[in-house]
């Protein structure tokens, strides 16, 4: 039955061993049992029996070519976390993505879905208030992560329509959930150190966070629609829980599930927090003048607490048919359950 094998889709998830990638693999397995699944990643924590693995570097042309051969849709979700060294961010996000596009085009892959980031529109100065996809990239990016993600996204969207490849880009904001290595474990760890008693800023800024299953859901919708829907090809979409919260309420949503008293003891008001931000900013700028290669995003982290960062997801709703399937409230509960479970092991 050669025909039936050739008509069943083949999906390659680059970064499928990672946090978001593994949730995409789970959801694709569940919703498309007919499809063949492949994962390309540096390493994977545990191998799934129904998945074919390609282990190695996404900058390796030979490996990417092999993984892409015969693939219907590539979901490229590999990315270092925003605190990684600049050279790594540049290499994985920009060079790696360019290699993936090249691989797709030489191997005749039909569709490429890129996991971008909401930070591609985050400017060095100013706020992101209810931003939609008409907002251009900023002339100066808030951080290098956003800058490299934007460069990669631009490459991906430009490649749409070239050599029969269809592309689109998803821009999730603040992903959290089970298997998270950042927000959930770090947030929960800060509770143990009593770091949650110290609140920098007046907690007045709205921030979008997105439960990981919702992001995976958006990816499977793109997998289903990109091959046939011309309104999606070449487009970028913000993906959030459609429910921004005041920044500290995100962590408090997690903390309140394990502790009865999470009131802050110290609140540094916005004006003072801004003063601290500018001090740190200028000191770091001075240091970088004297210490070769010195770069720190410590000031940027403070700034995040003081600026609105929330997005309008009307485009994803109307074109992708995306609606969050897990509420923030449920998301916190599932995240904490996973965390407590993982601590017991």
């Amino acid at each position, binding site marked *: 039955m050669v025909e039936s094998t050739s008509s069943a889709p083949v999906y390659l998830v680059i970064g499928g061993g990672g946090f978001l990638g593994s949730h995409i693999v789970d959801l694709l397995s569940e919703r498309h049992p007919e499809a063949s699944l492949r994962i390309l990643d540096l390493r994977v924590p545990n191998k799934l029996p129904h998945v074919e693995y390609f282990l190695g570097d996404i900058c390796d042309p030979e490996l990417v070519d092999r993984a892409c051969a015969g693939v219907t849709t590539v979901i490229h979700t590999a990315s270092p976390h925003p605190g990684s060294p600049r050279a790594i961010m540049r290499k994985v996000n920009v060079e790696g993505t360019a290699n993936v596009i090249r691989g797709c085009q030489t191997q005749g892959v039909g569709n490429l879905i890129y996991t971008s980031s909401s930070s591609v529109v985050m400017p060095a100065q100013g706020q992101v208030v209810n931003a939609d996809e008409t907002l251009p990239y900023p002339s100066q990016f808030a951080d290098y992560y956003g800058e490299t993600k934007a460069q990669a996204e631009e490459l991906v969207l430009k490649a749409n329509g070239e050599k029969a490849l269809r592309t689109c880009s998803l821009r999730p904001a603040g992903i959290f959930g089970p298997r998270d290595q950042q927000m959930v474990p770090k947030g929960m760890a800060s509770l143990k150190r009593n770091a949650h008693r110290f609140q920098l800023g007046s907690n007045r800024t709205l921030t979008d966070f997105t439960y990981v299953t919702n992001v995976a859901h958006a990816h499977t919708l793109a997998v289903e629609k990109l091959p046939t829907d011309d309104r999606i090809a070449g487009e970028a979409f913000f993906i959030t829980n459609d429910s921004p919260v*005041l920044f500290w309420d995100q962590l408090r949503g997690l903390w*309140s599930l394990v502790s009865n*008293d999470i009131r802050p003891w110290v609140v540094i008001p916005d004006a003072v927090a801004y*003063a601290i931000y500018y001090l740190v900013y200028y000191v770091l700028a001075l240091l970088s003048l004297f210490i070769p290669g010195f770069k720190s995003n410590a000031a940027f982290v403070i700034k995040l607490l003081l600026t609105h960062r929330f997005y309008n997801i009307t485009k994803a709703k109307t074109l992708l048919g995306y609606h969050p399937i897990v509420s923030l409230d449920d998301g916190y509960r599932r995240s904490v359950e996973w965390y407590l479970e993982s601590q017991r092991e």
Partner: protein
Amino acid sequence: MGVLTWLSHPTELVAMIRYAVTVPSASDTADKTNDPGLQRCYEFLDMTSRSFAAVIKSLSPTLRDVICLYYLALRGLDTIEDDMSLPLDYKVTLLRSFHSFLTQPGWCFTESGENEKDAVLLVEYDVVIEQFMKLDPKFQDIIVDSAKRMGNGMADFSVKRVVSRDDYELYCHYVAGLVGEGLSALFAASGLEDPDLGKETELSNSLGLFLQKTNIIRDYLEDLQDTRQFWPKEIWGLYAKELGDLTEPGNEKQALACLNHMCMDALSHVPDVFAYLEKLRDPSVFRFVAIPQVMAIATITTVFSNYKVFQQNVKIRKGEAVKLIMRANNVNAVRGIFIEYLRQFHAKNVSTDPNYTKINVLIGQCLARVLPLYQPESSCLATGTMIGTGLALLGIIYYQWTTLASSDVSSHHTGL
């Protein structure tokens, strides 16, 4: 109360004085009309309405009499609904046919119970009817239809209780949501607002529900004492065996959790309130609609997480109310007011509340609806930037001064 309150809230005192100086008093409006019947209607308005008389009188002349008579029509219905001395069957019949009395010259009603404070309105209702029938038929039709639906809804609920959340929504729809819808239809018919405003039934309903739910929450104790229950069992049943148990000592925690659950439910109408306010064009209509809404956000914020609701009648300060009335002149000012109260509301939410996270998420949604279009008068960001840059500059000057001071030493080392 008194001097101390004014001293601690000086802006409210200023607002009170300005209000007393600028807002037209009842006699001003009454003087404008030579019709003694209409004058009598405005006297009824003053007698029966605590909060609406002033806003109705500041409406533009096209709508003032129409809304005044709409108010008196609904007040008539309300007086019958409230009257506990009437036999139930008779009351139901009256409620269901009340709309037809509006066009029955000479109809009046003298059988109200002794305790009915607004009974005199029904005794002289023929005066209202006479004025009502002088209105443009397009307005009459809207008011009659509204009274018909409200009367039937009240009749339904005079024989059944508010149990489920759906009952609660429906009851509030009958007694307040329909008013929102009726007003939208009148605004549209008057030509002062978009002709399609009357079709915004869902948003109009939300306006009424936000007010009504806020009142129902605030009036918990008063209603309990009058043996009336409007809080739905579907909510209070999560926290108590009987609604009245909430007032009992030992149940404070459950009582607060229940109260806050009710407040959360009411607050969920805020996004719709703004969707509606943003559609309005006429300044006097805007104020008429917005003033009750800002009162409601102030009241619900005062009531939220406030155990006094179970002990006494909680109200916002008169000065606070007047200040809000003075401020609520345009949609941007109303956004500013809501943002302030939403932040206060947020600050009162404690993590031990069973709905802590849900309430935070809801406040996030409300703020996300209101913030993007808000133009702040002054910004904390600007102050912070100034302080921060100032401190940094001082730091640089200090740094340069110390390097200059030590430059003699360093020049020896470098051999310069």
